[in-house]
């Protein structure tokens, strides 16, 4: 069905796929969104966390007596208190443990040391100053490259790992075919090797993390309002961590002010608010401030990569290999499926046709905040795309070939799908050359190259100091994790439930396990039901973010919502449609086989006037109509969708930058993005997702960085230091689309939430380096970094200049 065929409801909305204004906007625009910090409960107390100023220090003593004497303080919680409750440590999402409040020594700057509960937020903060902590400072591991040195201090002396090659070593993990790859490299005409850093960045949603915990002392029920992208996973984890019965925990994730991966994990503050509520018998709110958010919650990336690409002299890529040093911080808190310690990084072979690939990922502990997979990365696909797309540009430069031509020559062809990559992924569908052609067409690629050559001529003649760069990135993502037989988090299979109930009057409610953080689920999922059942989307209420009122599922991250829950929504809708058929047949006194479906209605084949609308069927299902043997009344269905495979969105991006060679200043002039995420449920929302990701890419490529000094102090701990792109750094984006449905998804859709964040950084970096004709420089390409790269003395961005 094309967009123009979609019927329109009385309120002017498409009864199915198409542009539709968002339902959720009505409250947000009036300032009536309900975010965690907006929750006010009677008698609510406020918590604040004391954090370590040091990255690595033994706790000699903690004296809380003055804080406890503060007239408004209700409780002071330390690691010692938590130890008595067996809560001082908690599991991470990656088979490690993490400190809730420190008991022995702090392992990163900003780590949680004590928690104060007071009558108001200001008093809680005051009381933090009254806590006396004596620290014995230890040398910090601030450089991942030195983490495994013989004399590097052991960070995790709490762990008993006699077999570990070094106390700071976490794992070595590899994928691909090593021998074949070595052979291809040994015989290749051209090999280009390049080191690069995808630096530590932070998702930094506009809303920080927080929770309001309310333990009812009488019923023993814990209600926690919290910033979570995965309410059900959090509930199970709280049951496991705190030993609370799972049926007596209700996790409510109200409106979420952006997540991007930052709100997947469970943070010590959440647990402390629960403990605070248990100890005081009152609800306890804890909301971190921005510097706490940037210092202590999930960072992203931090991959030191050495890539090598092999090719023939005429530009046929033959192999790619990479060694990664992965900085995981002090606790391995990455969130990804259990069998994939480096996430989906081994999709690094990208969008090209060759059969030799190998990667090794070595993960280490450092004295930095834990985390690792966050910030819209599709489980480390962004690092993978950055690697391959930078390596392809390095190869183009080596060969003196146009980067678009080199890509065109090596892209997978449409007839090769489904395509199994050398590292074992099975790409579902794609037409890559079409997407790249389209992007080049929108960009006016040849004219840009001509302009660039003229600008370079003028620069070289000393007439100007302005250079222009054209950067390409072609990405393939794998999103929508499971299937659950391959993918789980803490043993919880990555499948998602969905429930649909049609009320007697034909309105309905759909209940989801996933949780929107701005993606517009209340609209999109109503449109899926509308598409499948012909019920106007305004007649469908979407319920999510409340474990008492939604079915189990793993939540929204890794672009899972439409690939997994969207499929579940289609499946339940089809089940309702099938049931409606039986009911319609009973009402029409015919056989279900005699009926045919048109949007919103079953009718008798060959006699279109005889039929029943879905609304009539809903009423009949709840009425006195006699239903056939074995058919229960009412009109509802449930489903659990266990995806058979990942879906593989892809896209071609072109970024045009202007670089002032005198100052190193970069201006993004244009950004062309052609995305293929399959059919678009709501194209307006899809475009919005892409816009946001492109800004992310510009931010990471040019501005965002969490670096550390030699004390292990976080140098990006505020928005004065951790720079986000504003409206001034972002251009007006030029979007294009191609549509290649996924063959195994019921709606053909592939997911788009992270595509642009994954695909765009390499385009920006390739563009700047194309302008200055330098092979490599690491993100963020600040004026200083660009200028130093041009002088031949590149900066190492992850460390302080000392």
């Amino acid at each position, binding site marked *: 069905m094309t967009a123009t065929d979609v019927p329109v409801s009385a309120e002017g909305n498409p009864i199915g796929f198409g542009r539709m*204004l968002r339902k959720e906007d009505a409250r947000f625009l009036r300032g009536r969104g309900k975010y965690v*910090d907006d929750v006010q409960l009677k008698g609510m107390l406020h918590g604040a966390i004391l954090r370590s100023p040091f990255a690595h220090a033994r706790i000699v003593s903690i004296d809380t007596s003055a804080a406890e004497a503060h007239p408004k303080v209700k409780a002071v919680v330390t690691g010692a208190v938590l130890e008595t409750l067996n809560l001082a440590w908690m599991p991470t999402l990656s088979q490690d443990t993490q400190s809730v409040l420190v008991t022995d020594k702090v392992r990163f700057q900003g780590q949680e040391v004590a928690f104060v509960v007071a009558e108001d937020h200001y008093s809680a903060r005051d009381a933090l100053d009254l806590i006396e902590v004596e620290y014995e400072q230890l040398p910090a591991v601030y450089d991942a490259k030195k983490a495994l040195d013989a004399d590097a201090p052991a960070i995790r002396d709490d762990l008993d790992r006699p077999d570990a090659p070094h106390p700071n070593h976490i794992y070595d993990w590899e994928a691909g075919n090593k021998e074949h790859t070595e052979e291809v490299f040994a015989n290749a005409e051209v090999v280009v090797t390049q080191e690069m850093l995808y630096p530590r960045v932070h998702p930094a949603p506009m809303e920080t993390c927080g929770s309001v915990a309310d333990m009812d002392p009488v019923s023993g029920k814990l209600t926690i309002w919290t910033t979570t992208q995965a309410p059900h996973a959090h509930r199970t984890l709280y049951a496991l961590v705190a030993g609370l019965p799972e049926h007596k925990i209700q996790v409510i994730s109200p409106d979420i002010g952006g997540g991007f991966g930052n709100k997947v994990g469970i943070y010590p503050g959440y647990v402390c608010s629960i403990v605070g509520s248990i100890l005081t018998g009152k609800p306890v709110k804890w909301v971190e401030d*921005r510097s706490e958010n940037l210092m202590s919650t999930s960072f992203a990336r931090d991959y030191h990569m050495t890539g090598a690409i092999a090719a023939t002299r005429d530009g046929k890529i033959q192999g790619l290999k990479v060694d990664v040093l992965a900085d995981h911080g002090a606790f391995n808190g990455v969130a990804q499926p259990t069998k994939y310690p480096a996430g989906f990084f081994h999709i690094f072979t990208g969008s090209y046709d060759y059969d030799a690939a190998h990667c090794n990922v070595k993960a280490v502990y450092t004295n930095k905040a834990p985390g690792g997979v966050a910030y819209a990365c599709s489980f480390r696909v962004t690092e993978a795309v950055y690697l391959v797309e930078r390596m392809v540009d390095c190869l183009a430069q080596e060969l003196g070939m146009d980067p678009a031509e080199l890509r065109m020559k090596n892209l997978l062809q449409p007839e090769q799908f489904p395509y199994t990559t050398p590292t074992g992924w099975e790409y579902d569908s794609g037409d890559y050359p079409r997407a790249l052609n389209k992007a080049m067409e929108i960009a006016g690629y040849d004219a840009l190259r001509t302009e660039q050559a003229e600008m370079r001529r003028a620069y070289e003649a000393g007439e100007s100091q302005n250079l222009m760069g054209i950067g390409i990135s072609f990405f393939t993502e794998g999103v929508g994790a499971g299937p659950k037989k391959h993918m789980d988090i803490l043993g919880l299979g990555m499948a998602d439930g969905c429930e649909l109930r049609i009320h007697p009057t034909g309105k309905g409610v759909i209940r989801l396990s996933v949780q929107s953080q701005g993606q517009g689920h209340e609209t999109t999922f109503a449109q899926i039901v509308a598409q499948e059942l012909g019920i106007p989307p305004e007649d469908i209420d979407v319920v999510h973010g409340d474990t008492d009122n939604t079915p189990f599922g793993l939540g929204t991250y890794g672009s899972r919502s439409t690939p997994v829950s969207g499929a579940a929504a289609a499946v339940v809708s089809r089940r309702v449609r099938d049931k409606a058929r039986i009911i319609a047949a009973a009402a029409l006194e015919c056989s279900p086989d005699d009926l045919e479906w048109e949007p919103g209605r079953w009718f008798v084949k060959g006699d279109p006037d005889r039929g029943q609308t879905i609304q009539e069927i809903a009423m009949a299902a709840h009425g006195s109509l006699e239903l056939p043997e074995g058919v229960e009344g009412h009109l509802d269905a449930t489903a659990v969708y266990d995806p058979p495979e990942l879906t593989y969105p892809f896209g071609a991006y072109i970024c045009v930058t202007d670089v002032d060679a005198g100052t190193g200043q970069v201006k993004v002039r244009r950004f062309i993005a052609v995305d293929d995420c399959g059919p678009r449920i709501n194209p307006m929302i899809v475009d*919005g997702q892409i816009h946001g990701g*492109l800004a992310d890419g510009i931010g990471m490529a040019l501005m965002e960085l969490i670096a550390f000094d030699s004390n292990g102090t976080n140098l990006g701990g505020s928005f004065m230091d951790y720079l986000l792109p*504003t*409206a001034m750094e*972002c251009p007006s984006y030029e979007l294009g689309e191609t549509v290649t449905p996924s063959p195994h998804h019921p709606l053909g859709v592939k997911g788009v939430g992270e595509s642009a964040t994954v695909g765009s950084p390499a385009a920006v970096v390739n563009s700047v380096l194309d302008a200055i004709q330098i092979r490599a420089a690491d993100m963020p390409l600040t004026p200083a970094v660009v200028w130093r790269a041009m002088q031949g003395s590149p900066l190492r961005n992850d460390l302080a200049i000392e």
Partner: protein
Amino acid sequence: MQVTMTVNGDAVTREIEPRMLLVHFVRDELGLTGTHWGCDTSNCGTCTLWIDGEPVKSCTTLAVMAGGHEVRTVEDLADGANLSPLQQGFMEEHGLQCGFCTPGMMMTAQALLDKQPDPDEATIREAICGNLCRCTGYENIVKAVRWAAEHPAGADSEVSA
């Protein structure tokens, strides 16, 4: 100490600590939670409201500084059930996703439109550059403000070219 101010047209008086920030005053004392709090350094603009018609970052303003002045927050933009043209523009152009930056963004943009009813894209971008948005990449926010400029009386109006 006691502070009295007008908030969205109503006179309010409260007994508060002198150090209380205006953002916490409107949120916690008055329950107007549309104004948000997103940083510690005056960078994000989610806390933007108006004092005497000027957009102000309420996280960097003491509540007592607003004493005797007129404060206006996002809750006052709509006229009852009717969204203002700017709010309509945000809806029509998908100028919001998570909605967290939106109140501050609109208070900044409305102040611009009041002074300059027909701003061009560059002017809009400059005006909102003290308001961060992590979701939209700003594209549709700029369009939303343009929509409001083109529909000064809301959906039923259009400036004839």
